[in-house]
């Protein structure tokens, strides 16, 4: 971790912005707290955590939490994935 800090600007892409917005909207509807988001991120296995981008970790945590709290079911998610 004692490596140089990349201080270059990195703009957000559409995916990043959409994930960020979904997180905010779910929080506003009390369907996902920021602490649940953080818990889900911390639960990602280490190797994968390092492979994923910042917002890839977020969407993974969001999906994990929505499944846990029953807002969506694994079956629903699987069929939605099959459609896309």
């Amino acid at each position, binding site marked *: *971790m*004692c*490596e*140089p*800090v*990349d*201080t*270059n*600007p*990195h703009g*957000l892409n559409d*995916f990043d*912005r*959409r*994930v*960020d*917005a*979904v997180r*905010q*909207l*779910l929080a*506003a*509807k009390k*369907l996902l707290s920021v602490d649940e988001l*953080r818990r889900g*991120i911390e639960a990602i296995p280490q190797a*994968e955590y390092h492979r*994923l*981008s*910042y*917002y*890839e970790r977020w*969407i*993974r945590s*969001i*999906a*994990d939490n*929505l499944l846990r709290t029953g*807002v*969506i079911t*694994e079956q*629903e*998610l*699987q069929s*939605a*994935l099959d*459609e*896309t």
Partner: protein
Amino acid sequence: MSILETDGSRLLAAVAVLLDRKGLVSDEAIRERIALTDAAEPAQGARMVARAWTDPDFRAAMLADGTQAAESLGIMMRGMPPLGVLENTAAVHHLVVCTLCSCYPRAVLGYPPFWYKSASFRARAVRNPRELLASEWKTIVPASVKLRVVDSTADYRWMVLPLRPAGTDGWDEARLAAIVREGDMIGVTCPVAA
């Protein structure tokens, strides 16, 4: 393979479709939220700093309650965590970090920059902050000045009120606001008269 290991874009598309079908989050709401989020940017924090430099009453109000001070300038704070303001003085320089994740005063500074979220910034900011600021930002905090790192761990969000630089006497608010950068309000840099 776990369903959660699905590629991020596909996962987002599927989650968004389900949330839309359930009437929880529409595509339109997402677009509106993106527009609102994009509108928050460092210029808003810079406006607060410039006002604090020119109006002692506002400065006192901002240090006492950052949220109210931001709202008084028309910045949207509803639904946002409380904002705390850390005043740099001739004796103390503040540096904000979130070692546990990436808590950032987004209402007044916008999306956190890439470096703020990096493991190296987060680790080095608490372990060796003077060396970090000197090597990455050429910011030298004099030995006579206390460096106070603020690790943003819980429910507040923190911004730095930097010192007004020399050579800005008589400048109006707009001109002052224009020299205040994102990093100045996190404490990795200090404003200079441009």
